[in-house]
């Protein structure tokens, strides 16, 4: 009885508003631009989710039983939303202004949505418009330069290779630095999914960019802390398209693109004549150096060149032309969307094909999606998102190797004097003198593909329990099957010793996520606005691996079943996460906002001692413009300050890092063998990051100019470090939480409508981010030397040192070439080496090993960002998107191969090798070429300042006039031209400035320059 009374009392309180006077309203929503009707705009009674409606196709709406003092919120995508007090009026016509700068859009954030203009955390959004026209199967291209503080990099220019994203710097040495990706409320796998070594397959390639409605990047702790243990590197929240009430839209898109060339310089090869000249000099100098006379040296060298670079009657072979082709991109996309009062749907099917510039590289994607919502009654709604995709990537190993790497082959391993076929037309099958294999012959004898099939099913149930109180449950099932396949025939050099090999790897990743939240959303007296959320989430992932390998293949056969010898393996790994969380936000009169969140996560990746971690955040913002003292300042249309502080975590990458492991598989005598493989810290724990963020936003002249400034400071603590230990123990390191890093930076965003006249608008935006990353603590203060993990062979060398950037290049400082004798010189940077001479008033040595290592540069830029310009005139639009970067360094590991000073006998050289010392007095970049000398690595000789500006994407489109197309009963026809990486200027003209996240490049394929044409038809 007591309980019932109490319940009635509470319910009574909730329904108090019902007692006020109620009226009915009709009205119409129109656009301020041209007075046209806005169909299907949303009309909502503020503070009461249950009261609201959607305008009809003519923009008309009716609302019944509305409180006479209510406030209506009218919103429509692409327009600034507007609040209109009812004040007893029965007819309310609303004029909405276009929100060209997207300052007031609703964005999807952690477990809900938020209005950009009032959000207390730090987040940036990228909308479908910025994504859809880019001629690439990878939507990530749209993020570069569009999100302040976000750095995007790609390890290889091969299509379909995985992408790396850093949000606000590097926060970990050992665990992941990649953000968490959340698609439609469900965390998903990102990164490389392939089991093939040296060929990556991007998990996110499975997402059709045209299905994306918006991407929100959550950057500070307030925005991301609700994702707790996985949010320290930021969160990328992707929302797919939903249908909208109204008539069915059918959209058909077709794109055709071409990638004829690389985007920029990339260690171009010198001409065949120049190769001969350089080669001659190398051997001649070598002979003279070993005491031969001029005549002897000439005779020797001429003889040598005649033998090894014989004149072929067929002339010179164009390897570049034979190895590279024009890449082709095709995309066909069909989507339907629509809905009625009860349900909406969006459905799409798409096929894309991207053929890389190297014929061994390509990607095929078939994908489909159905997103449905259904409101069953006034308290229960269901949502279903189903998607599938099949991505097939064909790739090759582009690390340093002399058989499979096409770029390396063309640039470094074949002379034009060498032909891929003998005079009789049969292929050359032996190694060339450079040790290179004839890639044009061997690539017919191998295959490497990775097929990623993915099925996702998300079920959402929303129950409105009482006014303002609802319960939402998402259940997501994702199954990914990755089939990797590698084949080498018995004729292939890699397969010959086993008479042909075939390997088939199957990975099944199963992920189950159950996310349950209770939401309470209510306004009191129109000034107290409260939102509360509490939830729990369980995530279970399991990866099953199977492998079947075969050798001794019958000729022409490529399957394991056909093999004479077979081998197999199977295993699984798993990782589970359990979380409880709560979030609250209160604002007073839309002026003062405070919010806070707490999350408790438990992970199977940690031992029982340290399994549970607590994370959380607090934030506040103040809309100064709403205050009396600013309300009448006309030129200022918005002013807001915000602050947040919070704690996030990162889990170890290793699933069982807290356990000392004893592994199997080290068999002997065909009997099982086991070995102690790791030593572990049982207290292994989360990495935790402590971030604060302060920001200011201002709008001027009716929000036609927007300025946003943010400063963040992130201390990443308890960083996992593979602490190197004495290998006498039998181990080389132990994983413990020890390091500390700090990242701080300022992000400035400017947006403005420069021109807005009748049919012409021009908006311009620019953002700039600074980044200052520093390691503040390492195990016992000891430096850690580490090597670039990409590209093979430990090319670039780095150091982790307290007080320095985590991306510090470590090596010998190049002093240049002595004009007197052409010797290479390094600054000694020590007092122990006997100086060779003074150079620029400093001691130099000609002995590489006598010089000491120093920090020679830092990969991260000091300032980076993007510039956007959008012009629209009548049906035309021209969008330009630039990215830029200043103050970083880039290490060209390929340099010492393309410019080896004489070390290699028969490798070809780059154009840069031409600038070499030949006679006393020459001021040259490169030393005298002498056979058998040179080839030093880890030196600033290959390090360049990497300032650049790149026209990352460009779209020029035209919407055919409505009058014209309506005759063909079409609703929209758009033709457009798009380009990717079209134009670049840089401080160095040697390698492509956009490389991997380590700021290095080796023999990986650089990015291409793509031009595409598209046609979009709406029915």
């Amino acid at each position, binding site marked *: 009885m007591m309980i019932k009374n109490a319940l009635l009392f509470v319910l009574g309180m909730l329904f108090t508003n019902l007692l006020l006077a109620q009226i009915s309203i009709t009205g119409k929503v129109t656009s301020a631009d041209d007075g046209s009707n806005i169909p299907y705009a949303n009309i909502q009674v503020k503070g009461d989710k249950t009261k609201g409606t959607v305008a009809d196709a003519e923009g008309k709406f009716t609302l019944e039983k509305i409180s006479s003092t209510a406030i209506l919120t009218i919103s429509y995508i692409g327009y600034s939303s507007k609040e209109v007090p009812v004040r007893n009026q029965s007819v309310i016509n609303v004029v909405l202004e276009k929100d060209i700068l997207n300052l007031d859009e609703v964005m999807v954030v952690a477990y809900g949505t938020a209005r950009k203009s009032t959000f207390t955390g730090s987040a940036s959004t990228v909308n479908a418009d910025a994504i859809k026209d880019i001629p690439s199967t990878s939507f990530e291209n749209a993020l570069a330069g569009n999100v302040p503080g976000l750095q995007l990099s790609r390890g290889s220019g091969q299509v379909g290779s995985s992408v790396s994203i850093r949000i606000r710097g590097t926060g970990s040495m050992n665990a992941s630095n990649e953000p968490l990706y959340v698609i439609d409320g469900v965390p998903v796998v990102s990164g490389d999914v392939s089991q093939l070594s040296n060929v990556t397959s991007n998990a996110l390639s499975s997402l059709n960019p045209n299905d994306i409605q918006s991407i929100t990047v959550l950057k500070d702790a307030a925005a991301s802390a609700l994702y707790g243990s996985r949010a320290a590197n930021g969160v990328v929240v992707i929302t797919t398209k939903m249908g909208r009430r109204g008539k069915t839209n059918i959209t058909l898109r077709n794109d055709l693109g071409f990638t004829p060339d690389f985007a920029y310089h990339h260690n171009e090869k010198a001409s065949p004549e120049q190769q001969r000249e350089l080669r001659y000099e190398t*051997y001649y100098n070598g002979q003279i150096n070993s005491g031969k006379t001029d005549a002897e040296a000439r005779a020797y060298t001429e003889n040598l060149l005649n033998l090894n670079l014989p004149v072929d009657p067929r002339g010179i072979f164009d390897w570049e032309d034979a190895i590279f082709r024009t890449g082709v991109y095709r995309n066909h996309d069909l989507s339907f969307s629509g809905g009625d009062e009860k349900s909406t749907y969006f459905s799409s099917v798409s096929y894309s094909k991207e053929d890389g510039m190297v014929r061994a590289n390509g990607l095929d994607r078939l994908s489909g999606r159905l997103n449905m919502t259904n409101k069953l009654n006034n308290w229960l709604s269901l949502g279903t998102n189903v998607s599938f995709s099949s991505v097939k990537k064909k790739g090759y190993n582009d690390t340093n190797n002399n058989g499979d790497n096409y770029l390396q082959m063309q640039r470094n391993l074949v002379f034009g004097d060498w032909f891929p076929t003998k005079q009789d037309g049969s292929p050359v099958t032996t190694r060339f003198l450079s040790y290179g294999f004839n890639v044009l012959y061997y690539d017919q004898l191998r295959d490497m593909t990775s097929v990623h099939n993915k099925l996702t099913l998300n079920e959402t149930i929303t129950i409105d329990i009482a006014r303002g109180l609802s319960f939402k449950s998402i259940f997501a099932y994702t199954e990914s099957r990755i089939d990797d396949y590698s084949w080498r025939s018995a004729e292939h050099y890699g397969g*010959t010793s086993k008479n042909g090999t075939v390997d088939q790897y199957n990975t099944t990743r199963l992920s189950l996520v159950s996310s*349950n939240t209770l939401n309470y959303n209510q306004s009191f007296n129109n000034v107290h606005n409260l939102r509360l959320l509490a939830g729990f989430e369980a995530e*279970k992932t399991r990866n099953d691996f199977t492998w079947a390998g075969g050798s001794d293949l019958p000729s022409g056969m490529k399957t394991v079943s056909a093999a004479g010898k077979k081998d197999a393996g199977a295993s699984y790994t798993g990782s589970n996460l359990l979380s409880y969380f709560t979030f609250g936000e209160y604002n007073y009169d839309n002026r003062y906002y405070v919010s806070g969140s707490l999350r408790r996560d438990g992970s199977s990746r940690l031992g029982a001692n340290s399994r549970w971690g607590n994370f959380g955040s607090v934030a506040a913002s103040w809309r100064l413009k709403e205050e009396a003292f600013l309300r009448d300042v006309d030129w200022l249309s918005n002013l807001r300050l915000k602050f947040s502080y919070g704690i996030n975590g990162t889990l170890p990458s290793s699933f069982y890092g807290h356990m000392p492991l004893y592994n199997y598989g080290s*068999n002997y005598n065909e*009997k099982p*063998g086991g070995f102690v493989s790791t030593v572990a810290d049982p207290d292994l724990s989360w990495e935790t990051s402590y971030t604060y963020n302060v920001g200011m936003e201002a709008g001027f002249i009716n929000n036609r100019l927007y300025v946003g400034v943010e400063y963040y400071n992130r201390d990443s603590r308890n960083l996992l470090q593979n602490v190197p230990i004495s*290998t*006498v123990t039998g181990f080389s390191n132990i994983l413990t939480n020890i390091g500390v890093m700090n990242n701080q930076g300022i992000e400035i965003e400017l947006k403005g409508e420069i021109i807005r006249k009748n049919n012409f608008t021009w908006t311009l935006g620019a953002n700039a981010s600074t980044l200052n990353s520093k390691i503040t603590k390492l195990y016992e203060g000891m430096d850690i030397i580490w090597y670039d993990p990409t590209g093979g062979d430990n090319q670039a060398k780095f150091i982790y040192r307290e007080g320095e950037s985590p991306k510090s290049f470590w090596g010998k400082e190049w002093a240049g070439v002595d004009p007197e004798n052409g010797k290479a010189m390094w600054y000694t940077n020590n007092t122990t080496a006997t100086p060779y001479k003074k150079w620029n008033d400093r001691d130099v040595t000609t002995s590489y090993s006598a010089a000491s290592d120093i920090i020679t540069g830092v990969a991260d830029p000091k300032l980076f960002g993007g510039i956007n310009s959008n012009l629209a005139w009548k049906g035309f639009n021209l969008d330009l998107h630039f990215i830029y970067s200043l103050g970083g360094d880039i290490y060209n590991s390929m340099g010492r191969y393309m410019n080896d000073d004489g070390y290699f006998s028969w490798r070809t050289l780059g154009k840069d090798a031409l600038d070499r010392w030949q006679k006393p007095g020459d001021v040259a970049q490169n030393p005298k070429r002498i056979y058998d000398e040179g080839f030093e690595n880890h030196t600033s000789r290959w390090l360049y300042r990497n300032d650049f500006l790149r026209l990352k994407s460009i779209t020029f489109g035209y919407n055919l006039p409505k009058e014209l197309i309506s005759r063909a009963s079409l609703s929209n026809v758009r033709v457009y031209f798009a380009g990717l990486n079209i134009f670049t200027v840089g401080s160095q003209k040697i390698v492509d400035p956009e490389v991997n996240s380590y700021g290095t490049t080796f023999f990986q394929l650089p990015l291409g320059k793509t031009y595409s044409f598209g046609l979009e038809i709406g029915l």
Partner: protein
Amino acid sequence: MNQQKKLKMKNIIKLFFLASVVAVGLSACKDDFLELRPSTSRNAAESITNLADAETALNGAYSRLTRLDYYGRRMVNYADMKGGDVGVTSRGIADDAMYLFTHEKDKDQYGAYWTTIYDAVLQVNNIIINIEEGKVTTTSPADAAKLDDFKAQALTIRALAHFDLVRLYGYPYLKDNGASWGAPIVTTRLNPLAKPKRETVAKVYDQVIADLTAAAPLLSTAKKNGMINQWAAKALLSRVYLYKGDYPNAYATAKNIIESSPYVLYTPANWNGSWSSQFGSESIFELLIIPSESDQGNASLRSFYRPRNDVRTDLGAATASNIFLDMFNNYPNDVRWARLGLDEFGNQKTPGREIPGRMGWIKKYEGDGKSPASAVNIKLFRLSEVHFIAAEAAMKMSGKDAVNAVKWLNDIRKRNPDAAPLASSDADQIIIDQIMLERRKELIGEGHTYFDILRTGGTVTYDGPVFFGAPTIPSGGRPQTVNWDYFKCVLPISINELNVNPEIKAQQNPGYE
């Protein structure tokens, strides 16, 4: 009233819905939801609990010996390349830094010897310590004997590992009677953060001898293909005594093997064939290289020695040196020519490098019947070597036994039909020289030459200043002759170890500091 009932009904349905949804969500949360175990490993603390576990761990330890940086290739070709009888043909192909002695103090070149060998030590200590701690209980005397045998095999591997470390990193024992730094000795479970120091060469030898003498009585005397038996432990022990200059013990141990073990020397007729099959009559311990387990493929010793122009994958990295071939040419009918073949220099494109008919291809790793052929067992101990040990010790010990020495040597000299048997009355030095010469001829390519020259204070001479026939001399190379006074005659402790183990810095080998 009706309205109220309806409302009630609706609330019940709502509650029911809520409850079911929450229940589905919670169903994931079983007690062990966060307790996940790996599928291919177990907690190392529980690695050995019974006899089968001990055997599995022992297999794992043997497998460690077959790695590329140990007996899989680099422990074997180290002593041949540095020993002057094998030459490297070009730079940058494989292991040329060892041939050129470009190992430097601040580089980690070939630091993998250190880490790979200590990894093997960790594995055998895991076996020995668990057994000593009584983690394995046996119920029958037969099982107890088996367990003892497992432990003794582990002890022998531990001895081999320490002996190899001291050969690579410490000066030869006889240079200063083992007074200089050898290697850290590990016989216990080390704390992960331990910073072990080097012990003297003498102490390491003591430990090696202690392990082997403890192991031998526990080991089976039967032939055990691919595994260590008592004779293998004794063969190692006799070698250790010989390196140490403890000739009486070397003599006694080797003599015991010759007289009591089931192994018999290859006859001249079947010498050649012994390289095409596994487990020949004189093979005391042969590491099994199984294609699916430890075949090094293109990195194998087979590929290392194969001429480049033979098969498209082969490196053509090394050939027998001119010095060796000049010596061997004196014995044109020696059966051991069968394992030398025409190398690639017959059709060289580099002027000055063509030598038609050059027999530099060392063919001891051409295959022993498995497929692929690169999976060739590594013969660590052969009776022939034991004969050399016995003969050398017999000549060098006080109260020499020239009769037996000559007999043991002549048994092998039969492989050259032209060789007249030596007589015990021949001068000591002649006999000793012949032992050393016969060793070179017999054991080329098997990882002995360099150690054999250095341990007695001899001088290694190399073919040319550098690569065979190469036009110029690279910078930073070694002299043309090397002896135990050259600081680079041993490897430096790698920079990686020095960085994490500061106390060992003071113990760096002189010249590398």
